[in-house]
Structures are given as structure tokens and as C-alpha cells.
């Protein structure tokens, strides 16, 4: 059985929803408290939504300094799968594991609604079960969900196909309607929409569940290989 580590910061509030969606996809998920300094060699790390440390500063700005983030970085840089959802995406950007930043929504208000998104890239660890160009509806709920980056970075994201999700109707002024991006290998993915909230066909569309089944698919197709146990590695052995 695949194993997932769901990182929990004080103020995270989607960790249980994320565990439930992973479990439903047949993945064994465990919560890992932010004070931990090592990961037990999970196949995938998830950074869930919420308000880490209250997000009183800038979303994710404090969480990136959490003790566990060193182990997450090590895991990510060794090719391990990392998925950040909402606050998790903000943390990944703050930690420099993904480019760009999430800023206050153009309307200046917290925005909670269902939006339509397009799957722009169906070969990442969490989108392989979708058709390229597929349209689906997912909930968003954030105050700082407006993706920004400099023009050069945006051009590069587009040219190299690192835009994973794009809004059909841009709800918050995100640059080029970007809702989710990945690293060049497609092993680190960040997105603002909440697929874990649309993963139960009895309650909602259920379409979000495919993000989680994709993790299993990509694992079995060996697209995603389990990285070595990196928990003991010295941080100095990696250079950004």
C-alpha cells in the first residue's frame, strides 16, 4: 500500500479531509506534526489547506520555517512527490519549491465558491487519471489565492508546460488564470482549488477524487519512484 505523509501545522484545517480523500483512493495516510524533523520515507507528502500559524503575516511565510519543512525539502529535492493544496501551495511557494507567490485576491475579499478549472497537464503525479484539457468543477476558499510571478517566470511556466490547472473564469485575478503549477519533473504540484472537498460522489461531484487516484496510478506506472529514505540526510548535502 502506498504511504502518504500529511503535514500538519498549527492552524492547518484540511488535514483530516485530505487524509480521508487519500484513504478513499487506497493510500495509507498519516498526519505528521510540524515539530517532527524527519519523515518515515513516505511515497508522497501532502501539505494541506488551512491557516498555518494563523497566516497573520503572509500565508505560508512562517510555516516554511517549521522543523518538518527541512525533511519535506529533502524529500522533494530527491524526486519525492509533494502536493500542496491551498495553504500548502502557499507554503511550497514561500519555501521556494515552486515559483511565484500567492497574493491577496483581486477583489480583496475571501472567496469561497465552486469554480471550473481545466486540466492543462495530465502527466503530473496527481493528474494522470484525467484527460488533457478536461474540465471540472472544484471548490476554492481563500483570501490569498491570486497567483503572481514575473513575466519571464510566467512565460517559462507556459512554455515548459508547468501550468497544471487553469481557471475557466478567473475568480481572483491570478496571472494567466493559473490555478495550479508543478516543477519540471511534475513531482511537486501546488494548487489553490480543494480536490479533497469534491472527492465523495455521495455528497458532491466526486471529480476531485481523481487527483488522489492519480497518485496511485502514477506510482504503479513507476512514474513516481519512492525516493531513498532521506530522513537522516544532512541538509548541507543539497544545494538549491
Amino acid at each position: 500500500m502506498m504511504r502518504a505523509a500529511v503535514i500538519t501545522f498549527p492552524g492547518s484545517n484540511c488535514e483530516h479531509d485530505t487524509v480521508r480523500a487519500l484513504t478513499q483512493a487506497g493510500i495509507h495516510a498519516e498526519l505528521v506534526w510540524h515539530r517532527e524533523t524527519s519523515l518515515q520515507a513516505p511515497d508522497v507528502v501532502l501539505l494541506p489547506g488551512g491557516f498555518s500559524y494563523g497566516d497573520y503575516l503572509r500565508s505560508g511565510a512562517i510555516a516554511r520555517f517549521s522543523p518538518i519543512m527541512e525533511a519535506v525539502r529533502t524529500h522533494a529535492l530527491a524526486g519525492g512527490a509533494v502536493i500542496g493544496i491551498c495553504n500548502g501551495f502557499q507554503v511550497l511557494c514561500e519555501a521556494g519549491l515552486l515559483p511565484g507567490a500567492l497574493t491577496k485576491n483581486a477583489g480583496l475579499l475571501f472567496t469561497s465558491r465552486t469554480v471550473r478549472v481545466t486540466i492543462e497537464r495530465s502527466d503530473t503525479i496527481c493528474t494522470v487519471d484525467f484527460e488533457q484539457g478536461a474540465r471540472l468543477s472544484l471548490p476554492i476558499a481563500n483570501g490569498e489565492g491570486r497567483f503572481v510571478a514575473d513575466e519571464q517566470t510566467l512565460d517559462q511556466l507556459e512554455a515548459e508546460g508547468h501550468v497544471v490547472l487553469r481557471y475557466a473564469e478567473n475568480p481572483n485575478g491570478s496571472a494567466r488564470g493559473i490555478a495550479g503549477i508543478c516543477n519540471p519533473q511534475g513531482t511537486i504540484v501546488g494548487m489553490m482549488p480543494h480536490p479533497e472537498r469534491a472527492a465523495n460522489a455521495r455528497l458532491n461531484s466526486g471529480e476531485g477524487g481523481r487527483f488522489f487516484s492519480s497518485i496511485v496510478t502514477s506510482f504503479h506506472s513507476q512514474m513516481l519512484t519512492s525516493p531513498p529514505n532521506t530522513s537522516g540526510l544532512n541538509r548541507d548535502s543539497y544545494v538549491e
Partner: protein
Amino acid sequence: MTLTPSLTVQPGPPEPAITDALVREHNLTEDEYRRIRSILGRTPTYTELGIFSALWSEHCSYKHSKPILRTFPTTGRQVIQGPGENAGVLRLPNGWAVAFKIESHNHPSAVEPYQGAATGVGGILRDVFTMGARPIALLNSLRLGPLTEPRNRYLFGGIVRGVGDYGNCVGVPTLGGEVAFAPGYSGNPLVNAMCVGILREEDLIRARAEGIGNVLLAVGARTGRDGIHGASFASEELSEQSEARRPQVQVGDPFTGKLLLEASLALIQSGEIVAIQDMGAAGLTSSSAEMAARGGVGVQLNTDKVPVREEGMSPYEILLSESQERMLVVAEPERIPAIEAICARWELSATAVGHVTDDGDFRVCHDGQLVASIPGRDLVDECPIYYPAAEESTQARSRREASPPPSATMPGTQSALEQLLDVPSLASKRWVYEQYDSTVQAGTVIGPGGDAGVVHVPDTPFGLAMTVDCNSRYVALDPYEGGKAAVAEAARNIACTGATPLGITDCLNFGNPEKPDVFFQFREACRGIADACRTFDTPVTGGNVSFYNENPGGAIDPTPVVGMVGLLHSIEHHTPSRFITPGHRVLVLGSTDGHLGGSAYWAHLLGFVGGPPPPVDLEAERKLQQVLITGAEKGLLASAHDCAEGGLAVTLAEACFPATPEDRSLGAAVDLSDYARGLDPTPLLFGEDQARAVVSVAPQHVPAFGRLAAEHGVPLVDVGEVTVAGSLLSILTSKERTAWDPSHLSSIADRSIPRRMTPRATQPGEGQ
């Protein structure tokens, strides 16, 4: 551990002497002060005066409302915990239970809208998790003055942001609510927040101090100087001087609130604690005194041990601070290390601040000096109870008996519906609820914008439906019928989703109860609520009374907000309020008499607030609920929408509206030419007769649904058909045919509030 009896009560370090003026400042009457002196057998210390002032405030003592509240039905097979605890608890299937409660935060929100509203949400969350329940939903009921006034826009914006930020951060979805605007709320907005939590019945914990020698621990945030005398502030009329009360408004920290929630639930589940209580209104004082009274024991508090935010805080300040995110825990002394460990896991501290005693006294020590010693039972029980005079004002009676002036010009049907949907009270509240996270916890089945919110109870087949309702115009015109209508509308909203109403919590917002006309409104509205609850078997499980909602302009409209929960036995049977499928039949359940008294049509289009509100036939309501619930369980209903403010026309329009602005509206072709004995279009379409719903049913299910309605004796008329997206809503009456583009109507309703909140973007002539 008890004090030696030789110690006598002494004033704490520099404390003012007790004078008549000081007593008045503490909102205590001469008679109340005499009673305090006789309880103590001496003059109280400043600290003791503060303690009495808080616990004998209207907010804590219910001294004007208790005899009336006792008339509520509070029992039933489903009741596990009725009024008197932090929240009511009702039984669900399979060993589950639901804890829920509504509470007001009106006065703080009037002077500091953001923090006032945020801490209202924080407080109600704590009331629910204190019972051992995990909060799974929030709702709120807001009342403000018209958005034409900049001050009201400021209050509204701040309140919505405050409500949103707290719930969003803690991660509890806001599933519904109501927002209404009327001139009477200018300067005295209402902010009522409701929380719903679930628990295993065996995990229920009551806030009862027990076990002589057990320790009291303060858990959570440190105590600061914020919110001192908040309970007393909530128990007086707002005035021009109220702005100066701003420092008395508590400041919320939802991040700590979330940690406290997790730590409290972990403490309860660990079995390491005896009792736990939120430090809410009147802070440490009321939490400790109430827990002691429930357990029939005494307590000693050592205020110098309480972790504080600033140096030099006096025992008076520490006892009366309403700093947020604090809990008081009772536990056996040997459990302290385990409790500290659980709290530390959530990065919180637990500090012993006192202990349970056997002599029944409420005692406070500071640096070894006894600063307060009061017989505990007298402190809680000896507060005087008042039976104020009640008499309806002649103005209220004549308003009810009045009719609109004959000179009033009635707008045509076409324009009337468009105008009504642009009235902020009737318009879409999307601008509001999109600022609230409604999908966190991943259990939302029906979010805000429908008749009632529905959430799935994790790991079970069932769901909970919930709503808050009150038409305060009805209550103002006829408090008894208005009280009934508030419960009836809530029950109808619950039943429209397919759920069975289980019970209510109420937030009774009124003016100064010492005024006979206000107390009449209160007494009669409560009588209406009680009668409706008895008929529907929905006991009252608790709630909150908020009096003194007055501003220099007078009392608010009486606003007894009813929060109701219902059980959906199988989540699959939830029924939406919107039409789903073209070709489905449109039917009206219930009977239409064209009652326009108290209607939105008269109030907003003719500028006439008056006439008798629609009478509520409770038996007809009960039967209607039965048909809706059974119809949903049998899978006969595609949609069901409660018919309320704005009548049939508004109900039909809303049923056509899309769930999100990106989707397209459906249409409907409705023929009412033979309906309701050929009533004129205005009463037919805009009358607000109760006990009605508009449903859509697949053609093959119409006969079975018709039989169901007939069995229960509920009138049912097939009036038309749902039509494809992009088609019109057309309504034929005996006099005319009117048609609207539903997407145009939907955009009027969606833009109503946002365009008023950004007045600079308002087009000329678009003001309210």
C-alpha cells in the same frame, strides 16, 4: 488547601471605595445592592462588587426573562441535554448526538464590528466543543440598518469579514444564515452566531465542578485587559457614549481558537478531566461560579496565579476580563502532568489557578490576601427575578390594523418582481456567503443559498440540516404570530431539504424589557415560539436572550431568531431548492389566500409597514412538513423551495436561478389563471401565506406525489413546467401574462448587495 478562617476579606491593592455612584456604574439597582449587602452581611469590596455586577447582569442572570423562558417546551425523546448547559444536545441514530447553540454578539459588533463579530463566532464555537462535540457547521443571522448609510456599510462589511475570518481560520464551514436590513437596526446591528457540532453520546461532558480538592486550570490564551465588563455592557442600551466602550470589546485570535478546540476535544477524549467550561461572558468569574453552582461545591481562585498579558493586573480585572480563547478545566490534582502534556501538544499552557472547596463559597485570593468571599449559591441563585409589566403599545396595535393608503401606487407585476429582488433583504446573499468557507471539512451537501444547509455526518449514512430564521416585520406587527412564523419557517426550510426537524435554539433579540411594550413583544413572541415548538415536536434546547437593543432612535424590531436542526436519515435523499431538470412539473403545495399584510411587497414597494402578518396554521405547517419529508424519502421530489418573503413570484424566480453565476438559469412556464379562485395578480403572486412550498417533480412521479399530498390533506396544484436553460420565467394569471428573463432577475439579485457596498461604482439613479 483551604484558607484559615482567621483571614478576613480585605480590599485588594489600591481599590476605590464603594460609593453610590460606583454601584450605579456597575449597573446595579439600589435594591440589588441592598440584597448584596444582606448576603454578605457587610459592604462588598470593589472586587466583590465587580463579581456581582457581572453575574447579576441581564446577560448572565436572565433576570427579566427566566419566568418566560420556563414556558418553553424543553423535553422530548430526542433531548439529551436541554437548557442550562453551554449547548443543547439532541440524540441522533447509532449513538451519535448533535450539540448546537446560538448566541448574540450585538453590542460589541455595534462599536467594533470586525472583532465583535469574530469573537461572537469564537464564543459559540467554544460553547459547542465544551460539550465534547466537534463543530461541523456555523450559521449566522445578521440585521443592519439600510446600506444607504455609510455607517451601516462600514458595520456590515466589518461584521461579515469578522464572521468569515474566524470560522474560515478555525476550519468550520458556514452553511447558512440570514441577513436583513431595516431602519430600526441602524446603530444597533444584530450579530447572532450559531454552531452545530457532533459527538458520540458517551463523550458528552457537562460543565459541573466536582470533587473537593480538585484543581481548576486555566487553559489557552493569557488574560488581558480586554472585554472587562463585556457582560454588563451587553446589558445596557447603546448610546452616544457607547463608542467609548470600544476598549471593552474583546479581540479574537482564531488561530489560538483552533488550537484550543483541538486541545479541548483531546482533553475530553483522554478522560483526564472532570469538567470543562468556556470562559465567555464575565470570564473567569462566571465560568467558575457556574461550574461550582452546578456541582453544588465552592471554589477558591488564586488570581495571582492566572497567566496575564500585562503586569499589574488587579484581581478585579483578572476576574472580569473577557479575553478570548480561554477555557477553565476541573481535574484531579494527580492528572495535571497528563493535562499539561496534552495542552503542550497543541502549544498551549495549562495553569492551576484554584481548587474546588467543600464550603460552597466563591473565594478569591490574590498574593495571599482574601479579596472576595461570597456564598456561591447566593451569588448565582439570589439574583432578583423581575416580572415586568407587559402591554402592547397603541402604535403597534394601530399599525397592525392599518391598510396601505389608497393613494399608494402599485407597480406592475413585471417591475414589482424586479424591484423586490433588488431589495437587499430579499436579494441574493452571495456577496456575504462567498466570504465564508462553506466547504471545509468536505462534508457539505447543500451550502448557503438554499433553504437550509445540509452537512454529512462523517462515517454515518445521515446528514444534518440547519437553518436560522426570523421575519422581524411579522413579529413587530404581531409578536405571537411572528413568533410562530419564525419556528414555522425554520421547520419548512428544514423539511424542504428532506430532513425532519429535531429541535431549536433561539436568540431572542429585543429592546429594553423594562418598557411594557417591549416586554409584551417578548412575552408574546415566546408564546408563539413555544406553541409552534410543541406542535412540531421541536423542543427548545437553549439559546440566548439579548435585551437592551436600543439606540438613541428607540428599540429594534423584535427579533427572536430561531436556529433549527433536522435529521436527514439518508444523505442521498437531500432535496435542493432549485429546479434541476427541464420537463419536470412545477407544483404548489399548500393554499394561497393572497395575504398581503406585513408583506415585503407592501413594505418595500409601497413603503407601508403594517397590516396583520399572515396567520400561521401550525397544523397545516406540520402536514406540509410531512409531505415534503416523505416525498424526499420516497425519491419523488426533484426540488422543493419554501415560499416566504416576496410570495410565489420570488419563490418561482429563485427556483430558476443557477447555483453559481457561471451556470445558466432554467426557465419555467407557469399558469395560475385557474389557481386560487382567480385572485388578482398582486395578492396571488406577492401575498405571503404561510405553509406553502414550490416543488418540482418528474412527470412520472406526479401521481404518487399527488396521492401523498392528498393523504396528508395538503392542497397540491400542478401549475406548470420547468423549461430549458435560457428560456423565460412566464406566469399567466387570470388578468395578465408576465415573463422575465431569469438570468436577468438572477443578476439583479446577485448585484443588489455588492453594488450598494461599493457606492462609488454605483450608476446614477441606482441608489436604494
